[in-house]
């Protein structure tokens, strides 16, 4: 299956008595890089979990194109890439083994071993880890893991790219590389949702801004300069 928009309508999620998402409505379109901004505990990670089909909404409706997560099943999951704060990498395995495992799990170039290896090599190169391909991930710095985690999430060319704090631990050069990669993905028709606290990095990268607090969507608007001031006026704080 494929889709060019994701629509959330009145989505709520409760964990016991705690309300993580409250009647949240938002539409994400192909080509968007949506910055999901808000203070700690705003519900950003829960929203990403719901969009990734890993967290079930307590109420409301999430549609990928015309289909729900239940209707989409594994075909839908094939079109979703997730980079969470925990990077979903096996620390004991090498960078190549990690990528190869997830590529196999997603059926990347399953019928062509040569092209499969090429896909892994290309991902390692994009992560800047060609020289460290045979090293265990536990020997990597946070930045190296972050770059590898991003390539792991993008190996299968997902339509919906969900990123939770993708710039954590990255140096300036890597931030530039990742930002360019996200722009390329969006230009190629991906829907990119990016949760971050780093307003300076989000400023100039995102095309739309969704501001959240206490599980509620406070604002959803096209990105404009002066993101920090806008954040302060809507969300509050410094």
């Amino acid at each position, binding site marked *: 299956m494929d889709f060019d928009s994701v629509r959330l309508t009145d989505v709520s999620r409760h964990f016991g008595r705690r309300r993580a998402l409250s009647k949240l409505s938002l539409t994400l379109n192909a080509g968007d890089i949506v910055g999901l901004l808000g203070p700690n505990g705003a519900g950003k990670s829960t929203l990403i979990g719901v969009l990734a089909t*890993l967290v079930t909404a307590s109420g409301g409706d999430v549609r990928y194109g015309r289909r729900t997560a239940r209707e989409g099943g594994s075909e839908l999951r094939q079109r979703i890439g997730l980079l969470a704060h*925990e990077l979903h990498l096996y620390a004991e395995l090498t960078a190549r083994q990690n990528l190869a495992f997830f590529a*196999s799990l997603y059926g990347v170039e399953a019928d062509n071993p040569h092209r499969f290896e090429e896909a892994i090599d290309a991902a390692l190169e994009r992560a800047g880890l060609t020289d460290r391909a045979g090293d265990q991930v536990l020997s990597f710095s946070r930045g190296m893991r972050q770059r590898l985690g991003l390539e792991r999430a993008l190996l299968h060319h997902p339509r919906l790219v969900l990123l939770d704090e993708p710039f954590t631990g990255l140096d300036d050069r890597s931030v530039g590389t990742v930002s360019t990669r996200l722009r390329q993905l969006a230009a190629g028709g991906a829907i990119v949702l990016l949760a971050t606290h780093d307003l300076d990095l989000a400023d100039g990268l995102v095309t739309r801004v969704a501001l959240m607090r206490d599980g509620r969507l406070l604002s959803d608007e096209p990105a404009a300069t002066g993101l920090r001031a806008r954040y302060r006026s809507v969300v509050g704080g410094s």
Partner: protein
Amino acid sequence: MFLRTALLVLRKDFAIEIKSYEILSTTLFFAVGCVLVFAFALVKEGQAPPDSAAAILWIALLFSGTLALGRTFERERYGETIRALLLAPAPRPALYVGKLLGILCLLGLTEVLLVPLIALLFSAPLLERLALLLPLLVCGTIGFAAVGTLFAAMLMRARTRDVMLPILLYPITIPVIIAGVRGTSALLATPPDQPTTIMWLTILLCFDVVFVTLSLWTFEPLMTE
């Protein structure tokens, strides 16, 4: 797709284990330690109490298996790789089967070590009666591991998982342990009581069918947050 995914997960677990031998070494060490403690306590002048070999074989398997189950899923918790597995476009019960196969291989290796060790220390004719002991061990291990894998996966995010796993697992797997011990005891009797062993083996088989089916059915809803 189902089998391919299960084998991928199994191969990945092997690849990790080969780097550290962490789970294998702790499980084997614990199982052997358990048998040795019982041997020192129970065997007097080369004579073990009747039926003790059967009981100790299953107790050692139960305890070391519980240890292995907890550690296996600890790996998926670190780095939250379980979420990446659940997000993959693969049938989610196949992930369960992959993990179950890994536990079965590990417990199989433990049994390869335990059976001759118990036969030696308790003077039990385990090796002479392998034809029926083997199916007993296979069915008992599958039953225990099927429930254990499901519970270990379910408890992965619980803060008290190390305590909760045996508390939940042991009452449910009591029938497996009873059937295993009684079947093995009947097998080790002189002469071997084969009809009784076969009866307990049939009970183990029924348990396996019920709990493997239930686990496959409930794995996906239990793993969704």
